[in-house]
Each structure stands twice: as C-alpha cells, then as structure tokens.
C-alpha cells in the first residue's frame, strides 16, 4: 500500500522530483509519519519545509487536492494523494 505525495514549488525544488510514492504498512498513516519519511529521503526538503514531524509555517498540505491540513496527527488513507505546497499563494 502506498500514499502518493505530490510536491509543488519550493518543496519540489528541494526534493528534486514532483511525485514520491511512499509505502505504508497500514491502511492509513498520519501526516507526521509521512513528513518523517520524506525527511529521511530528502534532507534538503526537510531543512527548508519541515520541523520534526510538522510542516514549517510557510507550507501546507492538502488531502487529495480538496482540504488543507497541517496537524501531524491528520489521518491519510493508503491510496490517497497528499499535496505539499506553499501556504502563501500570493500572485
């Protein structure tokens, strides 16, 4: 089972890729666990965008492109996509 992480903007720059397929052992995991897994894979991403299990203030996650979430305890279902992007959509 896996969660598909889609990265946009600076997170994508730091990770060097747009999409990351993360294996999960259970039917669901939580945002904090996903952040920790990503941090291990992409240290530059972690340095810029994460603080422990949390997203840094300037970044936000979206479940399937629908709702925005930040809390590390947010449940993410296996098979779901999780987007990570800037929380400042100024244009």
């Amino acid at each position, binding site marked *: 089972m896996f969660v598909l992480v*889609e990265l*946009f*903007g*600076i997170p*994508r*720059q730091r990770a060097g890729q747009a999409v990351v397929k993360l294996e999960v052992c259970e039917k669901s995991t939580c945002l904090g666990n996903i952040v920790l897994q990503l941090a291990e894979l992409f240290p530059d991403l972690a340095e*810029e*965008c994460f603080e422990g299990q949390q997203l*840094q*203030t*300037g970044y*936000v996650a*979206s479940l399937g*492109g*629908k*709702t*925005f*979430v*930040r*809390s590390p305890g947010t449940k993410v279902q296996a098979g779901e996509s999780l*987007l990570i*992007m*800037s*929380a*400042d*959509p*100024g*244009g």
Partner: protein
Amino acid sequence: MSHFGYHGHYLRIDLETEQVTRVSLGTEVLRRYLGGSGLGTHLLLRENAAIHDSLAPEAALVFAFSPLVGSPLTTSAKFAVVSKSPLTDRINDSLASSGFAMAGKQSGCDALVLVGRARQNSVLLLDDGRFELLPVQGLAGQGTQQTERMLQKQLGNDWQIASIGPAGENLVRYATISHAGRHAGRGGAGAVMGAKNLKAIAVRGSQRVTWADGDRLNAYAKDLALRSVGPETAKYRELGTASNVLAFNRLHALPTRNFQQGSFAAADQLAPETLAVNRVTDRSYCSACTIGCEHRYSLEEDPATDGESVRLEYENVFALGPLCGIEDAHAVLKASQMCDQYGLDTVSTGGTIAFAMECVQRGLLDVSWLKFGDSEALWRAIDLIAERREIGDQLAEGSRRMAGWVGQDSLAFAPQVKGLEIPGYEPRALQTMALGFAVGTRGADHNRSGAYEVDFSERVDRRNLQNESAALAIETEDKAALMDSLILCKFLRGVFQDFYQEAAHILQLITGWDVTSSELKSNAAHIVSAKKLFNIRAGWHPKEDTLPARFFDESLDDDRQTKISRSKLDELIESYNQLRGWTQDGYLSSQQERELECD
C-alpha cells in the same frame, strides 16, 4: 509644522492653469491615513472626486508616497496612484515600485494631486518642488519603456519617470501607469493620466526627511532584511509568483477559458519550472528591496540568441495563457511584453479578450478569428485594444461594458466584479476569496483582499463558504489596507510574527509617534471605510457586491462539486457589512460618515 518621516504637505497642481498650491497635512490626518493608499483615499475625498467623471478635467489623480519611503527598510520604495477608475467608476488605488517613489518624495512633498487638463500633450517635471509642463516632443505613441529611455536621455539619468503608453493615450479603460518596468496596473489610472494630456511625469529632488530614531531604525532594518531572505519568501525569490501555476492547476483553481474550467491541460508548458529549462532567465529587484521577486525569461528559446527578456508574473501567465486557452509559452511571453509596452493591465486585457472569445464561441459575436487557443488572435486583439481599432474599441471598454454592448445575457459570464476583471483565483475553488472579490471596494481584487490565504489554510473548507469566512476576509482586507498605506510589499507578510505590533514599532522609529497596534488596527478599518465612503458618493449600490451569475449557476467542468451558493454568499456579505459596523446593506453608519467627514 515639522514631522519625522514626512514633509508635512502635498502639492496640488492644476494642469490647465498651471497653478501649484502647497497644502499642509496635519499630524492627525497623517497619523490616521499614514500614506500610500490611505492618504490617497483621504485626498480624493477632500477633492470631492467621487462626483466627477473619471476622465473629466475635474477628476483628481493622486500620487501618494509614504513615511517609509527613503528609509532603509526593505521593500519600502513604493508609491500609490489613487483616482476614480474609468473601468469601475469606483475608487482605484494601485501601487507601483522603485525609484519614482524615492525621487517623488525627495522632490519635496508627501503626495501630488493633479487636477485639470493640460492644454497640450505634456510631460510634467517636478524638480525639487519646482513645477514645469513641457510639450511632448516625439513621445506621442511611444511605448512605456521607450518613453522612459527617451526622457532620461533628454533630461538626465537622475530623473525618475512614470509614463503611459499608447493605451493610456487612447484612454483604454484599463491602461497602466508604468515606471522602470513596474506598473500601477489595475483599474485604468493610465487612462486618467491620458485624459489629462499627460504622457509622463518626471521627478527628482534632494529634499530628504529625517527619522525620529535613525540608529534603532537602521538596526531594525538590518534585522528585517535578514528575515526577508528566509524561508517565508523562498517562493518569490527562487521561482516567482508564476510558481502558482502548477499548484493552482492541481487544485482546479486556475481559471481557464474564461472561467469555464479550473484546470488547463497545458499548464506544465507555462510553469516557471519548465520555462527555466529552455530559456535564459534573469532575476531583478525593485530599488530598496532584498527579496528580488522579478523573474524574467528570454522571449526566444535559443539561448544563443541575444534577445529580449520578459518579466513574467502569475497574473500575466494565467490571464494571457489558460484564460484565453493559449498553450504556447512564447505566445504568452510576447503578449505580456506587448501589454507592458502598450501600458495595459494584463488581467483586464486577458479577461476581456477571454470574454470576447467565449462570445464568439457561443455565436454572440461575429469576430470569427477571435478564438480560444489562437496565439495570433491574442496578439491581434492586444494591438487593436491599444489602438482602439475595430473590435478593439469595444474590448478597450472592459468586459462589463462590452457585455452591455453584446447583450444576450452575456453579463452572466463577463468575468468581473464592479467592472474589474477577476484575477487568477477561481472563485468556486477558493470561496473565501470569492467573498473578498464580491465586497472589495476596488472590484475583484487579490491585492486589496488576501482572502486566498484563508482558503489555503485549515481554517476553512475552500470549496464551501462558511460563517467564519466574513471575519477572516475582513482580517486580510485590513492588513492589506495597512500594508498599502505604510507602504510595505505584501510578499513580506509571512516574515512578521505579529504584523500590527511590528508596524507600530516601525512607525515609532520613523515618526516618533506613540503608535500602538490597536491604533493601527483601527486605522486600517477606517481606511477601508473611507474607500467605501468614496464609492457610496460615486453611486455605489448594494447589488454591486456580488459575482457574475456563472459562479452561482455553473460548477466547474473539472470539479463538479464546486458551485457558490448565492444565498450563502448574500448571507456572508451581510455578515461582513455588520462586522465592519456598516448597515446590513453595506452603507456606513451615521457616526462613521461623520468621523470621516471631520478628518
């Protein structure tokens, strides 16, 4: 009376009589309205500008500086241009950046108020407070950057120039005033300037203001400069605003084909991540800015070609790209360059052209070449708008007036609020922003309302309006009003832990006033009410605070769950009005009107 941070007066110039009056600004007014957008609004109210046609000689055009201009604070080199908009007939405050702000303030005033109409097409010179009108020689019809180059060659490089292009000269209702490649873009200030027979304003001066606590201001400025290049501004520094393209596309928030869809199949081709692969890129900064958000791309893909580069922002990309169905990056870059040279607001240009494209698609308009996705059609339309030729004469009026001319219920899909074309935030996908658009005094505006920040948070469900949305929209509006009056760039906003507290501290260091954060919160709300008063005097009616019918009647093709509830929006507009202390309909209370009239 002497002030720290200010000269303590503005210059009122009658362009017909060439009379210049120096008018004092008291501490009470300055402390209430600060500068920029706030001061400009106050001066327009003083001029009773709301009752005049925006293009009439009596119309007032205000250039307002601020107490922060000339200080060591990053992003402080900004000025506001405030007038009645020829596009909306409501208040229009647009901001631009760089040397003109500093030179304008150094010419010896806190603002310029221009009334009347020059007897011939002219350039206004303000040389350390001395005023002169010069006839335009060889400048008529020149593009904005060409005008600036020619004038600097004639006058000297120590002059700073704000100019209009052919669009402003031809009174296109969304013409810009431009300076150093930046634009007081939205709402048509360029047409107001053109109607005054002013091709350009050239300023220089040596009159600097002083600061109440220069040493501590310098120390604070150094700290702010360091913070300004931290993670909160990485997006702007490394990718620019155009990095919104792919994220918005994924969220179905990227307005496409005149807001028929929220995503665009070719979005990848227009994203900075792709553009940077095949094109030479460059980055530039406004004066006194540490962020450097301006990203330029070569017009041609071949890096060996020593060609032109074009500055690209998200609003240019969306409006001249997906909104018109254009997939080709070169086409969007060239269209953007054309708009810059002609002096056209890219959002209103793209929005009006996209509207016309849909009219053609529906068989309501007999201009068969004007089709979605046709690059040549886009460029041809831009040429015709700037020159007001053929269908360009109607396009130059903006989508709302054009819908009136087309008829056949086309207003339902004219992408505007109060006549101002909607920027690149699909209202059905970002519904707090939708509320911000509906109630905004300038019209559909993502700069005076930052409600998209709320949508991009866990505080609301972005696809459904909630009761909390009204208060949250007010928070972002008030913050924007304060930033636009101080003036500081909104790209700094993520840097501040407590913005009002830091703003109070900044003003204490600059002016010596014992300003508090609660005073500034009150001032911000007062400034928004002042703009509302202007609109009421200009004839505003509650029915203007809404969205085009499309957003209520149609969900997005690519996200069927999204539609805006008309009744919920109306309910939240009432809530917004009441939270502002206005009547349920949106009129000011008698006490608020009295306070504003006493200012």
